[in-house]
């Protein structure tokens, strides 16, 4: 695996290849020098052999001459000495050859020089012997001594030659041994060379194969990526283009063509062809932005429209930026994003918003009518009622007095209804400013405001420990006014009404029931009364708008009070719960988040 890893690392492979080539070169040079040496050895052996041959030839010529001379002396037949006898031509040729063969060796050439001198002397003896033999008076003694000397010289020559031949053949033998040895060496080197070359060849081939395989894989991956990119462009509704600023050539993605409402590659990608698909009203702007960017190389971002051949208008968000490609050429890459749907939705949303704003203003106007304009005549009716009651009531019959009382009750009820409506609308409207508020102080204020009501009901109100909370002050005041008023309203007539307001710890059950993650996240304030209570099954309904549980006219509710409470608690991102038991009383639980949950 490790080797495979190294194999894949082309840097390491390159280094290995370079080393291998150096080694091969080295071995090749060694091989070359070995071959060179072998060549010279072969030459030396040949030289030695030739030298031996020449020497043998020389000896044999001398022998022939000697024999001829002897034969002549014995027979006196001229025929023995006729045929170029004593011509040294052949021997001179031999010596010349020998000289040439031994020219590069000083000792050997010295040997030959000595040999030449011996031959010269031998020839001298030949000639002297022949002269003696030819003379009329053959001096036998002299002839014999000459012949003896000749024979000695010949022997000497022979032994000298055989010494040279021996030394030559010994040399040749050594050379031959060397030759064998060098041959062996060369074979090993050649074998090594071949093996190494083969290994390199094999590795290179394999590496190439691996590379090609990898290239193919990368290519496949790229193809897949390209395909998925194309699909992604189609799905997401965007297309991209590239401009090489060096070559001034454009490349468009398939989906860019589709965004323009044509088939991919429907035309040659360039400015002239593209501007036909840009909405005429946007054309100047788009070309200006594009051309400016080509000068200052700043990123661009713009919204414009494509006009497709079918006349469809597409809203496009186009961004462009500059970068350099692999060749170092500056290129601009642009992405065009079809925002037609978003644009239409935004437009729709804007319209809806406008409509909503209009409705809101209408509602506010309506609210003003209710809170001010309706209250004005009602207040006057009540005023006149109070005037009549004071001055003219005695003039009416009993039935008239009853009717009149009903008029007063109805007018008062309408007033509370209007006040509640105003209060409710105030909980919906904006300007919700949160302020750190001491609930204890708020409750004290409320008890002041409700003092007449409390006195009338003879209620005992107990205020326990209460926290300081970040709330909308007027709303939180309204909340407790409504809750206490509610308790007062539904109090029992026969016993002293007791109302208790205090903060309590959140129980485990409440955490489970109301999905509270941390006890410390909320304040819990409990309002307990001993009033008429209600059936628990109505617990959720009592917070609904205009929902009233009691139909008895003595409980004159508007059905708004607790709805306002619910609304206010919701405005504080809290929640309100209630537990009731008929004849025993009701418990309201207000949960208001601490900290920044608001």
């Amino acid at each position, binding site marked *: 695996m490790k080797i495979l890893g190294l194999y894949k690392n082309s840097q390491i492979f390159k280094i290995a290849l370079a080393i291998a080539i150096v080694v091969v070169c080295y071995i090749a040079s060694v091989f070359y020098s070995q071959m060179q040496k072998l060549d010279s050895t072969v030459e030396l052996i040949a030289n030695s052999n030739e030298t031996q041959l020449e020497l043998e030839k020389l000896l044999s010529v001398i022998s022939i001459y000697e024999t001829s001379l002897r034969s002549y002396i014995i027979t006196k037949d001229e025929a023995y000495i006729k045929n170029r006898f004593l011509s040294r031509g052949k021997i001179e040729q031999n010596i010349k050859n020998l000289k040439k063969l031994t020219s590069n060796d000083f000792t050997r050439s010295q040997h030959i020089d000595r040999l030449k001198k011996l031959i010269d002397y031998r020839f001298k003896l030949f000639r002297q012997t022949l002269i003696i033999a030819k003379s009329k008076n053959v001096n036998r003694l002299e002839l014999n001594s000459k012949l003896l000397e000749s024979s000695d010289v010949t022997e000497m020559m022979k032994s000298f030659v055989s010494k040279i031949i021996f030394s030559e053949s010994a040399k040749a033998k050594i050379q031959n041994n060397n030759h064998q040895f060098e041959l062996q060496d060369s074979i090993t080197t050649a074998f090594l060379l071949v093996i190494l070359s083969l290994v390199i060849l094999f590795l290179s081939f394999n590496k190439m194969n691996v590379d090609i395989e990898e290239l193919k894989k990368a290519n496949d991956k790229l193809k897949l990526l390209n395909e998925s990119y194309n699909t992604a462009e189609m799905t997401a509704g965007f297309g991209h283009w590239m401009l090489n600023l060096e070559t001034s050539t454009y490349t468009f993605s398939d989906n860019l063509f589709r965004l323009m409402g044509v088939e991919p590659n429907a035309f040659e990608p360039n400015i002239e062809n593209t501007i036909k698909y840009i909405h005429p009203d946007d054309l100047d702007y788009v070309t200006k932005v594009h051309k400016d960017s080509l000068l200052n190389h700043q990123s661009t971002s713009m919204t414009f429209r494509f006009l497709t051949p079918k006349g469809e208008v597409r809203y496009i968000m186009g961004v462009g930026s500059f970068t350099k490609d692999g060749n170092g050429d500056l290129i601009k890459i642009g992405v065009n994003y079809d925002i037609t749907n978003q644009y239409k939705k935004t437009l729709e949303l804007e319209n809806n918003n406008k409509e909503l704003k209009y409705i809101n203003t209408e509602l506010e106007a309506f609210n003003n009518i209710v809170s001010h304009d309706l209250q004005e005549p*009602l*207040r*006057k009716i009540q*005023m006149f009622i*109070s*005037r009549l009651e004071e001055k003219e009531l005695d003039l009416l019959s009993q039935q008239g007095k009853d009717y009149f009382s009903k008029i007063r009750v109805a007018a008062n009820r309408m007033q509370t209804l209007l006040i509640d409506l105003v209060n409710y609308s105030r909980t919906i409207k904006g300007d919700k400013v949160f302020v750190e508020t001491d609930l204890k102080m708020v409750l004290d204020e409320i008890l002041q405001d409700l003092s007449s009501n409390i006195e009338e009901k003879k209620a005992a109100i107990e205020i326990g420990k209460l926290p300081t909370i970040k709330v909308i002050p007027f709303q939180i005041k309204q909340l407790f006014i409504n809750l206490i008023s509610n308790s007062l309203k539904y109090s029992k007539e026969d016993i002293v009404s007791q109302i208790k307001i205090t903060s309590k710890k959140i129980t485990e059950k409440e955490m489970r029931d109301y999905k509270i993650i941390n006890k410390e996240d909320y304040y819990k304030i409990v309002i307990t009364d001993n009033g008429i209570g209600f059936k628990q099954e109505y617990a959720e309904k009592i917070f609904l708008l205009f929902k009233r549980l009691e139909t008895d006219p003595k409980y004159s509710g508007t059905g708004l009070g607790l709805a306002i409470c619910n609304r206010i608690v919701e405005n504080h991102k809290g929640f309100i719960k209630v537990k009731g038991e008929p004849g025993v009383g009701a418990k309201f639980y207000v949960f208001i988040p601490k900290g920044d949950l608001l």
Partner: protein
Amino acid sequence: MITHQDSMHILLADDDEDDRTFFSEAIQELKMNNKLTLFKDGNELMDYLVHPDIKLPHVLFLDLNMPGKTGIECLKQIRANTRFKDVSIAIYSTSSSEKDIEDTFIEGANIYITKPNDFSSLKKVIQEVVNMNWQFHSSGLNIETFFFST
């Protein structure tokens, strides 16, 4: 203009005829020692006030929602003129909106009264406001005591 001869001079500017009637009837029934001058709108009030010969009132009851010159415009004009610095101004309106209360407080009204919906309350309010120790009320002026509740 209906004028009651007395030492304490009270003005009321209100476009509603009934309210003017209630107000003067209440003053009558209270049998207070004062002189009441009534105005139908802001313009009439201002025309009267700019007259150099008049004796300055002690208290001015000022309705907000009036045709022509509104109550808040009258208030601004009056408070811009140092001649009227000793005149106490009681806003007398049906509205009890936070905005109106705040605006009139900022513009220098002394007290804010919402019109009561029965006659006895009205009498009570007038009596309390007229007999109020203005010196004391003005010196400790703050938004909490500004809004007068019955």
